[in-house]
């Protein structure tokens, strides 16, 4: 099995690799090539399968032999043959699989300088037998660890949404077989894998269903490292040619976007707080021009959804109360879509990457919003915040799931009428009105509680008095 830590320890001795982020990037492309090679052994069971790779660049031929190429020869091969050949596929390959490999290698780099250490890392990777069912299962856990490690590697955490949140959003949107699922900022593919597994386990009945599902999962990621991780993630879950593009979803004009009005399900956690470069906003109509990444994504989503298409999206509080362009985007959202639910998450769900408050927005395209239900997600009993060791868990969402199809107002849930929202100039930052503060509680009840607490304190004082009197030889 893989030992990520040992690989990192080996890389620490290499003068070329600097920091956790580069170590992870290095492991990422190597893992990709290894897993792809293992997968190809499966694909080759089909006689018509043709590899996109030239023979010398296949993992089995340059890396698989533990005693094979090493030291300077290995470095030279990797830098001067492997990378140029594979990167060239981006434009030259005859099929999508080849172009995918080309895109990945284009966005990757070999940081290692020592061929001997590189050989050691390769041999560690060779310990992974991806053709074994058991190992494959374990690998997904290891992969989770790598993704989580990204959180501590600088700002890379922006690609990672806690699994419980991902799972909850997918469960509620419930993508079906035959629907096109899309994540315009897919990061390491967390939502896509979750949606894929959701459909596969719940709805796939036969080989034909399975083949159809392969083409129903689509994503776009702008940055190379998460892109590679995302592709590998999907391949490792069984998608032969992942439909993820290495691109910026916002970088093409909305009006002739090829996916416009075509997507059935969008689930995403777009990067927020970010600013897009100059020129990007020109792809959007004048009234909605902004440099705010999250705002542009929301606009894009409302455009891409097909009629009756469903979306779930993570957005910060700032979007809910923001004004200006945000107001217009919200107006558009509420006019064209039914924003039926906003789940307000407590602080620290994305800790330690960001402490800002976030919300999960659920909406359906095609009808205007009449009322919005809010649900305030509480911390579990005894928690003051989430942390790396105490992350949010899927069980916590059971209350929301129970409430989802049977909605009543409660201490956690409330609804706001669209007229009220319009009066408030589309401010969606609605505070929970059902929390009862002490001032509004019955004084008689509080007095009883006070007397109880005071009596408890008095009893304890007596006990302490007796204990002390006993110890110090006095009379209580």
């Amino acid at each position, binding site marked *: 099995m893989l030992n*990520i*830590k040992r690989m*990192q*320890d080996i890389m*620490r001795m290499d003068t070329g690799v600097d920091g*956790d982020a580069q170590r992870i990037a290095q492991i990422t492309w190597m893992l990709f090539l290894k897993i792809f090679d293992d997968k190809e052994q499966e694909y080759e069971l089909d006689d018509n399968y043709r590899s996109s790779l030239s023979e010398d660049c296949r993992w089995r031929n340059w890396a698989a032999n533990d005693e094979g190429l090493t030291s300077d020869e290995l470095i030279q091969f990797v830098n001067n043959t492997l990378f140029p050949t594979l990167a060239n596929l981006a434009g030259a390959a005859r099929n999508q699989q080849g172009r995918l490999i080309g895109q990945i290698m284009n966005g990757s780099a070999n940081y290692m300088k020592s061929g001997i250490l590189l050989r050691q890392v390769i041999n560690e990777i060779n310990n992974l037998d991806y053709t074994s069912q058991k190992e494959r299962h374990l690998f997904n856990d290891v992969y989770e660890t790598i993704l989580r*490690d990204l959180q*501590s590697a600088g700002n890379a955490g922006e690609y990672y949404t806690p699994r419980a949140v991902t799972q909850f959003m997918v469960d509620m949107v419930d993508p079906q077989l035959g629907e096109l699922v899309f994540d315009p900022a897919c990061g390491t593919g967390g939502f896509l894998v979750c949606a894929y597994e959701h459909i596969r386990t719940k709805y796939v009945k036969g080989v034909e269903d399975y083949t159809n599902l392969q083409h129903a999962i689509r994503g776009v990621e702008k940055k190379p490292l998460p892109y590679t991780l995302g592709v590998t993630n999907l391949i490792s879950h069984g998608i032969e040619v992942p439909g993820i593009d290495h691109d910026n979803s916002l970088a093409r004009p909305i009006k002739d976007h090829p996916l416009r009005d075509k997507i059935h399900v969008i689930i995403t956690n777009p990067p927020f707080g970010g600013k897009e470069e100059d020129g990007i906003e020109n792809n959007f109509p004048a009234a909605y021009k902004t440099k705010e990444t999250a705002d542009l994504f929301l606009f894009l989503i409302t455009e891409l959804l097909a009629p009756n298409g469903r979306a779930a999206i993570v957005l910060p509080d700032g979007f809910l*109360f923001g004004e200006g362009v945000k107001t217009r985007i919200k107006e558009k959202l509420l006019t064209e879509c039914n924003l039926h639910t906003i789940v307000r998450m407590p602080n620290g769900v994305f800790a330690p990457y960001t402490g800002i408050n976030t919300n999960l927005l659920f909406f359906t395209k095609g009808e205007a919003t009449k009322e919005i239900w809010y649900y305030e997600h509480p911390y579990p009993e005894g928690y003051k915040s989430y*942390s*790396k*060791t*105490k992350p949010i868990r899927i069980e916590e969402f059971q209350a929301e799931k129970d409430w989802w199809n049977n909605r009543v107002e409660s201490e956690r849930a409330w609804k706001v009428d669209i007229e009220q929202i319009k009066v408030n100039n589309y401010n969606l930052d609605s505070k929970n009105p059902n929390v009862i*503060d*002490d*001032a*509004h*509680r*019955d*004084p*008689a009840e*509080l*007095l009883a*509680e*006070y007397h109880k*607490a*005071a009596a*408890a*304190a*008095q009893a*304890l*004082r007596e*006990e*302490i*008095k007796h*204990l*002390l*009197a006993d*110890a*110090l*030889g*006095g*009379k*209580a």
Partner: protein
Amino acid sequence: MNTQFLFDNFDLIAQAPGEVAKLKETILKLAMQGKLVPQNPDDEPAEELIKRIQAEKDKLIAEGKLKKEKPLSPLTEVEKPYKLPVGWEWVRFANIVINRDGERIPVSSEERATKEKIYDYYGASGVIDKIDKYLFDKPLLLIGEDGANLINRSTPIAFIAEGKYWVNNHSHVLDAINIDVLLYLKNYINSISLESYVTGTAQPKMNQAKMNSIAVAFPPLAEQIRIVAKIDELFARCDALENEHSRQRERRQAYVVSSLHHLADAQEDTFALFRDQALGNLDTILATPEDVKKLRQAILTLAMKGKLVPQNSEEEPSAELLKRIKAEKEQLIVEGKLRKEKPLPPITEEEKLYEVPAGWEWVRLGDAVNVKSSKRIYESEYCSDGIPFFRSKEIGELGRGAEIRTEIYISKEKFESLKGNYGVPQKGDLLLTSVGSIGNTWISDGREFYYKDGNITQIASQETVSNEFIQQFIQSPDFRRQVIDTVSGTAYNALTIIKINNLVFPLPPLAEQHRIIAKIEELFAKCDLLETALRKAEKRQVGLMESVLHHVAAIQ
């Protein structure tokens, strides 16, 4: 809820923390509903007053002294939150005041710095500077125009400026047909929430148009005067109450400190006296969670003096214990397992803080236990997985019983090699933070870990001296005092192994150490419960106060 409930529980309510601010809030609310003073049917109705104000304003407009105002929309029913007594009127703020905002002039602080400081210079919450000239020379009502105070209201948002003064553009300036109306409006504005008249959350602002639209419950002039007089009278009583309460709290605090100090530090001849006094007044001494913290310290001091459990002359005296420890050490030195070290200096009479019971000895820590630290772990050896590596932070958290979040690890291989060559912390070893926040302790529960040298020192567990006892000694005031003496004056705030070895502490016979620990633990467990119970009671008391006052002023 009836008001009888308030009076039945008045002492409890009036002694809850934060009581005076809430009382004042309630008084204002009651006043503005006409409940504070009786109505008089002979008073001229407010309607007439409003007419007179309008006539006065028309005259000023005709004379060109006041700008013609835009007519305001009539008040809707929704804007009238409660039913008014006979003779009162709901009226928009602008209809009863004379706005003088146009006469304000802001002066930058740089410019003010060049001026002579003679007259008050007002900003949003009061006087912020002095200036050489003045704009106004009669009492006027100022209302903060912007700033967080519009929302949190930590100081009164409306106040009267008097004398000759200047106002910048952060306060609205308002006049009226007489000072009595201004005084009433000051109280009225301070009694209501302004949130619906404020725009912006990051930079709250109440512009003139919003302020003008405020709905005011406006009584007859004679009643306004009576209301203001009543408010002033009650507020004066509230302030007196606040003074009395803070004096009472302060006196009780002083008594707690003094009584526990005398108990803990009493000499033989006065001990019984102070003990009986403290026990007799324990209800007064243990009134707040903070008191419990002080009691814990007193218990530790008493424990270190042998006052907490009786001595037993049958038990092996500490002097014998020390001989055994010394013999064991010498044996280890002979076997080459321990390095021979310079003997520690004998303990002087001044170092003995008090007389210890028979069978006890004053000892230097280094003569009783084995103090050491770890092998250095370099940053390059840190891992993201493996054996937890603790720094002061983690030891502090473990000591408080908090859940820790391990951030640094060392590899299993490294740990095994340290274990083989030098040994690693064992169950029962005491870890002590020794740099920065000195004196946090944790006794290892046997888990695998390693720790940062220098920042943390380790006292190996042994049979002769209980590490739990050492731990309690380290928590006690005796230890703190010595550490302050030892560490103060050094550039680097650290308790080195040499300094720890030289600390003196009172060593009881072994069996007595265990009895002392058991007694401390028993008492501390109760203290923890009491602290929680007191916090809960305090929270309920505040809740009760808020609830009662809210209901008293609630609109029926």
